[in-house]
């Protein structure tokens, strides 16, 4: 058995290395804590086994070996139950506690019942307890595996680890008993394998960012978005999702933004956490791990997943869809709100999302709406004017959001105001100023629209559903009005350079 003892000691060293790796690199506090507990239990179990054989004999060492064996086995389901799959059912926590509570009781009963460590797996109460612990963990892992594609790969690793423990623990003990060899009860050769597979799972579900371990009380101020719900913003580009999320964050609501590209949180919003989705197949699992950790620490918080399409691209749509379903569940559990965007999703994927029963809000593209308002004042120059503003802001026109409206208003007032002043006609300047002020007011009204207003689809780019008969303009009236415009000397836009080229901001 010397070879076996050496292997056990080497395995304990590997266990220590794995423990250090997980403690240092895994951000999920619950998983990290329970992994550390299970690993420490196994290390203690194997070392006390070696100590029992090689060290000075004594009842204290025997008790320590029995206790550590029972504890290590009880901590395996505690770790598996901590995995973030569909929230954490409260019953599982109770089962973990009961198993842990039984450990000292059985430790006391072992010498009283005449059982020993060598017959640990063979005696009825102790053996049943040890195997029950592993079987409960195995059952939960199998449940993960068959519950959907999101964590099936991770569940496979958990199952592999527990099967290794079962083989090298009770399986090997029974085999040795059959052939009359001394028992290896109180040790397990497969602990490095099991801890390695558990570590794989811990890393694959590792949150992208560290959430402060301090658990805040439920955020209870009346939010503008209902708690416990999932809202899908149907928009071509993820714009309103960011705007609305920031509005909520300004109320003091904790916010987590998950996007493909990580951006630094705004300094004026201290409760905002932003995480970037790292390109890997485990993206969906890590997003779920991040969300679980955030919602557990910040109940009532808001989670905006701007990079759902990126998750679908990295992990596949089936995993992304199950991710949404599970996020919806844990948002209900923690009275939180989930915001999603349909940006970059295909039509079939949108239909799948709708089938989940989420709140669906079709939203306009702010660029189109702003352009519609500009064209009301500037006609065909609106497009080039918006292009000029985008160049001024050094960004693509498609990236303009409602948050840019104050800057756009300032840009218009300055550049167009300067142009009109250059004409040298006070009446023209006054008329342009009046029109600009009206335009800026319309832009600000649009910026102030709430989600409810927007969901009514009364967008500037949309004509009223029913035209008023009194507002109908006949062709003859239109031609007459145009003639009058020409008569007063209004130059057509085609005879002048585009207004955007003439607009030169001074800042």
């Amino acid at each position, binding site marked *: 058995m010397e070879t076996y003892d050496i292997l056990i000691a080497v395995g304990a060293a590997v266990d220590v290395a794995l423990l250090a790796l997980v403690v240092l690199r895994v951000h999920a506090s619950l998983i990290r804590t329970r992994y550390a507990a299970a690993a420490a239990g196994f290390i203690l179990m194997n070392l006390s086994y070696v100590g029992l054989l090689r060290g000075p004999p004594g009842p204290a060492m025997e008790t320590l070996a029995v206790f550590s064996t029972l504890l290590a086995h009880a901590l395996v389901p505690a770790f598996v139950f901590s995995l973030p799959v569909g929230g954490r059912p409260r019953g599982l926590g109770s089962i973990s506690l009961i198993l842990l509570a039984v450990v000292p009781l059985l430790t006391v009963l072992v010498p009283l019942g005449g059982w020993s460590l060598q017959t640990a797996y063979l005696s009825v109460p102790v053996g049943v307890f040890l195997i029950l612990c592993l079987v409960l963990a195995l059952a939960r892992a199998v449940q993960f595996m068959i519950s959907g594609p999101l964590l099936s790969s991770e569940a496979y690793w958990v199952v592999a680890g527990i099967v290794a423990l079962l083989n090298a623990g009770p399986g090997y003990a029974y085999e040795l008993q059959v*052939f009359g060899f001394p028992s290896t009860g109180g040790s397990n050769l497969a602990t490095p394998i099991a801890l390695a597979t558990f570590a794989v799972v811990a890393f694959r579900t590792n949150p992208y960012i560290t959430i402060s371990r301090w658990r805040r009380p439920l955020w209870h101020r009346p939010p503008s978005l209902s708690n416990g719900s999932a809202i899908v913003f149907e928009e*071509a580009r993820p714009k309103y999702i960011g705007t609305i999320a920031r509005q909520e964050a300004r109320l003091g609501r904790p916010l987590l933004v998950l996007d*493909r590209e990580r951006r630094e949180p705004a300094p004026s919003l201290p409760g905002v956490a932003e995480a970037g989705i790292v*390109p*890997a*197949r485990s*993206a969906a699992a890590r997003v779920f791990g991040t969300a679980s950790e955030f919602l557990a620490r910040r109940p009532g918080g808001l989670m905006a997943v701007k990079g759902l*399409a*990126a998750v*679908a*691209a*990295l*992990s*596949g749509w089936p995993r992304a869809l199950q991710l949404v379903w599970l996020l919806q569940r844990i948002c209900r559990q923690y009275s939180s709100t989930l915001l999603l965007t349909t940006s*970059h*999703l*295909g039509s*079939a994927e949108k239909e799948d999302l709708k089938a989940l029963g989420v709140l669906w809000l079709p939203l306009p593209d702010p660029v189109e709406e702003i352009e519609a308002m500009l064209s009301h004042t500037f006609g065909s120059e609106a497009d080039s004017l918006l292009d000029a503003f985008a160049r001024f802001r050094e960004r*693509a026109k*498609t990236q303009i959001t409602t948050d840019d409206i104050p800057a756009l208003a300032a840009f218009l007032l300055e550049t167009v105001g300067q142009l009109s002043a250059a004409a040298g006609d006070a009446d023209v300047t006054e008329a342009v100023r009046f029109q600009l002020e009206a335009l800026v007011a319309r832009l600000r009204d649009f910026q102030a629209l709430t989600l409810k207003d927007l969901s009514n689809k009364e967008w500037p780019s949309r004509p009223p559903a029913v035209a008023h008969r009194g507002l109908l303009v006949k062709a003859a009236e239109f031609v007459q009005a145009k003639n009058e415009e020409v008569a007063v000397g209004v130059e057509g836009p085609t005879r002048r350079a585009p207004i955007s080229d003439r607009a030169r901001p001074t800042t």
Partner: protein
Amino acid sequence: MATRIVAALVRSLLLFLFSVALVVGFNYHSTFYSLGLGPLLLGGGLLTSGVILAGRYILAGELPRGRPKSALSFSSEEVPRVLSGAITLAFLPLDSDPPQAGDVVLARYEGGPEFGRLLTLDADRRFVRDITEDEALKGGYPSAMALRDAFSRKRWHLDDVVALVEFRGLGVSKWKPTTS
């Protein structure tokens, strides 16, 4: 050539280790012979089947990344550039079930045979209008404008969403086209 020899040596070494483990197991569990011929054949047969299956995967080069799950097709003009690593990005329509990150995919001639295997490193989605110059170059186009022109011939519009799959070659030995 050298890489192929190293790969073959590594696979052979793994097979040898498996065989050694099997022999050690037989020696260590020599008492199993007392179980009788029937149980020995059943248990030993199952165990040996497992070893043979593992060996098959090792020899077929399926380990450690698994079987290819899909394929990417390239024109005969693109293949040398894919082989040389000049093209590392593919643009695919969403409805084509594009590969995910970490997948191994077959690299094929368009409508033709396989010429290698690729490991997908990254996957994302873009509007055609948002594809950058750098991405167009990685995809083998001289510029983003040329890419959009090529896409318009495929009837892809500027507001269409495409999947971007970044890849690298796997197994250098396979990067020599067997057919042309």
